[in-house]
């Protein structure tokens, strides 16, 4: 087992990893930018190193400084969390080359799965259902038109190197295609430095369902149920839950089996997530693999009892998976709300001084946060300041518990998404679980606050 782990991240996920390390008896090194020097997660670590100024590209994303910090503190492994360097194949590669264990998949796997069209080609080769669409990157307008006609409108054009909604265009009719193709290419070029785009069938009211997988260094793989992440705005998830109200036992086993196949094809190691689009008829299509721990991992932990961060560390240290597929049971229902320092109506970031921070407590309520009273939410980083997670025996009880917990949560000094969460959890359609990826936009249009 590792003796000392450097956490190449900040905020709640850094604290989450430090907690797991403490429970495993592993020493921790926090890195921080100069403005994060006295943050809670930094104080929680055994050691700390300032790696640069507030600008994340000069500190948290500064590979030489992060690796130097690992070297001077003698850390034998690095946990990247999510964001920053978590899906940076080059970083993983340098870690490998200097003998520091990167807690995640190999740089080759990150590289392969990071290229969406290559990943899709691989899945097609393995017989895994993928989104109907162009077989690879579209070379010309003519090729795009042909592909679109084949899958049928509406279609969506996406950047190969993309993510987060950038470089995407929905095309409803044939005569809109050429313009959309050109502008998607241009945006892909300017955003990602690569103008490769591909095209997929665009589904009306699909669900975003993803499967958590865990693989050890020997290649044993298990799946830990699904997460329903349909409540999103501009591809930013706001609420997640598990089990999905749309997934029954048969579909769970089937989609889980396919997810395991998908990551096996990429020689996957460590924790990962396979994303699927699920249509109304329970057809599911592979979208991509996220090669990192995710923001929403806690809902899976709540229903399985399995500590995913600890398992990441254990398998990275070469230990075999501690359980087989048949040992994994899904018990109860879990929701997660992302509490962002944002205006809950305009979704503009709302950094500033947090005057009071009083998280809810009691049975079935978990708060993952590195926030505390009298601290400043910096405009330099992600606006998520807490994750509020509930667990109960049924979806209905978990929902009531979340309503109660949202009512209890006191954050003063800045605006947060708590009021929006309260409104969504009081919505009849949401309560019934009748949601798709279009829910939130419609909800906001129908329910102006």
């Amino acid at each position: 087992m590792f003796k000392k782990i450097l956490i190449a991240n900040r905020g709640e996920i850094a604290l989450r990893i430090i907690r797991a390390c403490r429970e495993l008896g592993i020493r921790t090194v926090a890195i921080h930018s100069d403005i994060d020097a006295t943050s809670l997660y930094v104080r929680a670590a055994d050691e700390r190193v300032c790696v640069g100024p507030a600008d994340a590209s000069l500190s948290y994303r500064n590979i030489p400084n992060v690796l130097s910090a690992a070297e001077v503190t003698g850390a034998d492994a690095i946990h990247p969390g999510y964001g920053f360097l978590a899906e940076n194949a080059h970083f993983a590669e340098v870690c490998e080359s200097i003998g520091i264990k990167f807690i995640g998949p190999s740089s080759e796997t990150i590289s392969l799965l990071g290229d969406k069209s290559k990943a899709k080609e691989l899945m097609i080769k393995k017989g895994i259902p993928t989104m109907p669409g162009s077989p690879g990157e579209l070379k010309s307008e003519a090729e795009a038109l042909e592909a679109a006609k084949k899958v049928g409108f509406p279609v969506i054009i996406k950047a190969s190197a993309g993510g987060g909604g950038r470089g995407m265009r929905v095309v409803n009719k044939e005569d809109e295609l050429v313009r959309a193709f050109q502008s998607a290419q241009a945006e892909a070029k300017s955003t990602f430095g690569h103008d490769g785009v591909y095209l997929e069938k665009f589904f009306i009211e699909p669900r975003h369902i993803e499967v958590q997988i865990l693989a050890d260094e020997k290649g044993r793989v298990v799946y830990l149920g699904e997460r329903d992440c349909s409540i999103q705005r501009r591809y930013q998830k706001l609420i997640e839950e598990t089990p999905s109200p749309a997934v029954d036992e048969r579909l769970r086993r089937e989609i889980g089996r396919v997810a395991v196949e998908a990551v096996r094809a990429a020689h996957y190691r460590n924790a990962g997530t396979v994303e699927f689009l699920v249509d109304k008829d329970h057809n599911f299509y592979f979208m991509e693999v996220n090669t990192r721990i995710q923001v929403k991992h806690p809902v899976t932990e709540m229903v399985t009892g399995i500590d995913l961060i600890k398992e990441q560390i254990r398998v990275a240290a070469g230990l075999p998976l501690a359980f087989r597929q048949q040992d994994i049971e899904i018990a109860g229902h879990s929701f997660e709300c992302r509490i962002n320092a944002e205006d809950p109506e305009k979704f503009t970031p709302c950094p500033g001084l947090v005057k009071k921070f009083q998280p809810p407590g009691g049975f079935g309520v978990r708060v993952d946060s590195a926030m505390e009273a009298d601290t400043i939410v910096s405009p330099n980083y992600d606006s998520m300041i807490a994750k509020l997670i509930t667990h109960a025996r049924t979806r209905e009880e978990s929902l009531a518990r979340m309503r109660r917990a949202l009512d209890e949560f006191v954050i003063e000094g800045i605006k947060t998404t708590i009021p929006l969460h309260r409104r969504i959890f009081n919505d009849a359609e949401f309560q019934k679980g009748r949601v798709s990826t279009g829910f939130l936009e419609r909800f906001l249009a129908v329910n102006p606050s």
Partner: protein
Amino acid sequence: MKKSRPGAKGKRATTGLTPVSGPTPARGRLGVAASSPLGVPQAEIQDLIELLKRNNLAEIELERAGVRVRLRRDLAPLTTAAHGEALTAPQDVRPNEVPAENAPQDTSGMVTITSPIVGTFYRSPSPDADPYVEEGDLVKKGQVLCIVEAMKLMNEIESELDGKIVKILADSTKAVEFAQPLFLIDPNATA
């Protein structure tokens, strides 16, 4: 020895300068520099200290009816926290810190050279060689003051100005972090 890798050179050339306009407090500790603390309750100062610490500020100044309080501190670098009590408040303990009794001296108008990168501080180009500089030496802008080793690369840190080395603030062969003070230079000294 090679100087820093080409890719990162631009950034590293910008050696961090921290002009010190007032008295320098003991690093890593809170220093109360009140012109007259009389009439201000200790508890109120303690509150200000809390405010300073919790909000991660470097300085607070408060003036009222003839009483002026000013609080300053440097932020906590490379440290080891005790388990258990670590979360009660920011720990400002640095293992390889310059002893406190050396700190309180008049440093107004002086310039601190800080480390632009994370790495290991070396005062000489090799274990057998003489240090690049000693306290009391006069240095020129562009003169190499030390090496910070990072990722097996030796990065020479140059002086950004002419002046006298008043104090060497880090220990050779020990780790330094970003923005950690390395040298205190007096630009006005001529000998």
